[in-house]
């Protein structure tokens, strides 16, 4: 049985001496210890964002990650890796940081992750660049790091309309992907149909950042001067008998958003920080409860958004 902890992971051999730097608008992630094929695959998988990212060398967050070689596969049952019917890595909160275990990888994220190197280990060489390894690792890394910065990762569909980001927060199955697909087909840019990153601005607001995370709808926004957009408003997405929108009170908004803040909302040591961040968020942006059905046309939905007129 493979036993994992921080010290055991950083003792594992690397896959090679290649390195890849992923300069996202919100973070620069340098992955070292890769084989040539792993480095090539990661480059190819993230080519979409390359143009936008090259203009933003001063990302708010910087991380170094060491790719390691596991001697055997993590032995974890599928039942332990399922949350709300979806695959989700197991995250153990230890004094040294977070230890992640997925069906095909193990990782360590030190606390704070920006001060020391992370470890990402797989058994098979070809697995490291896979979405269910590298993306899952980066999601947990970003969720924790964003909260440290006063921001958060949020399950949401993100649309960019007139230069502002509108996030539609909901759990899986409520309609984020359907909404994103409709929006994209009508010419609206999509940040992500599944998960979006918010970081605070010096002026007291929040900005939504392009992230390399998406759900079933794979198209993500590659443009924008630096891959980030002022947050226009926050919509708490739900299903009902008809299209409607109503203001959300602060406490129910905080609760809804907390339920959709993955990886940090199940950690006791992060609860106060999460709720404080959400309280700041709902105090400085317009938050509304939006009920939709699958049949609602995207134009009608967009017309309801605060600050967006019918011709948006």
């Amino acid at each position, binding site marked *: 049985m493979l036993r994992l902890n921080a010290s055991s992971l950083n003792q594992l051999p690397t896959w090679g001496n290649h390195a890849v730097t992923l300069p996202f608008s919100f973070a620069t992630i340098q992955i070292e210890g890769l084989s040539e094929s792993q480095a090539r695959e990661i480059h190819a998988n993230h080519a979409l964002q390359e143009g936008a990212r090259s203009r933003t060398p001063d990302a708010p967050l910087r991380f170094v990650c060491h790719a390691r070689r596991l001697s055997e596969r993590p032995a974890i049952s599928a039942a332990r890796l399922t949350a709300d019917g979806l695959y989700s890595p197991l995250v153990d909160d230890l004094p040294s940081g977070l230890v992640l275990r997925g069906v095909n990888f193990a990782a360590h994220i030190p606390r704070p992750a920006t001060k020391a190197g992370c470890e990402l280990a797989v058994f098979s060489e070809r697995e490291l660049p896979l979405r269910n390894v590298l993306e899952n690792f980066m999601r947990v890394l970003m969720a924790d790091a964003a909260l440290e910065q006063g921001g958060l990762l949020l399950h949401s569909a993100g649309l960019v309309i007139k230069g502002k980001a509108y996030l539609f927060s909901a759990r899986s199955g409520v309609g984020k992907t359907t909404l994103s697909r409709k929006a994209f087909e009508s010419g609206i840019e999509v940040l992500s149909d599944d998960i979006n990153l918010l970081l605070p601005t010096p002026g007291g607001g929040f900005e939504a950042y392009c992230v390399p995370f998406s759900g079933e709808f794979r198209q993500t926004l590659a443009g924008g001067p630096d891959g980030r957009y002022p947050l226009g408003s926050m919509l708490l997405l739900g299903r009902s008998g008809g299209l409607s929108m109503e203001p959300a*009170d602060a*406490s129910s908004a905080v609760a*809804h958003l907390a339920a959709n*803040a*993955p990886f940090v*909302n*199940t950690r006791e040591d992060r609860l106060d920080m999460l*709720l404080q961040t959400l309280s700041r968020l709902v105090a400085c942006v317009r938050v509304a409860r939006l009920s939709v059905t699958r049949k609602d046309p995207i134009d009608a939905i967009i017309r309801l958004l605060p600050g967006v007129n019918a011709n948006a």
Partner: protein
Amino acid sequence: MPDDSTNHCIRQGIRLNPRARYRAVGEDGVLIHLDQGRVVVVNTVGLRIVEVLAESTARQDLVAVISGEFRVTADQAAQDIDSFLAELDKENLLESVD
């Protein structure tokens, strides 16, 4: 916000789920189930019930606190408390104590 919401009490065989935490948000409160990431909003009265429930107290004390602080009869307080606890139970935020 309360400094410590991890202490749970027994009230007629029911207590807060040990994996549930509560925090005040404005005048309301939220209860978070740490295993599921589920969050429930409670109003001022509900938050007070949870706060009292998290301390060691008997049923009559809980009824007395709620009826006294919110100026309702003891019967009404007891009815509201039972109704509220039934809602929490549905959300797996309570557990039985043998």
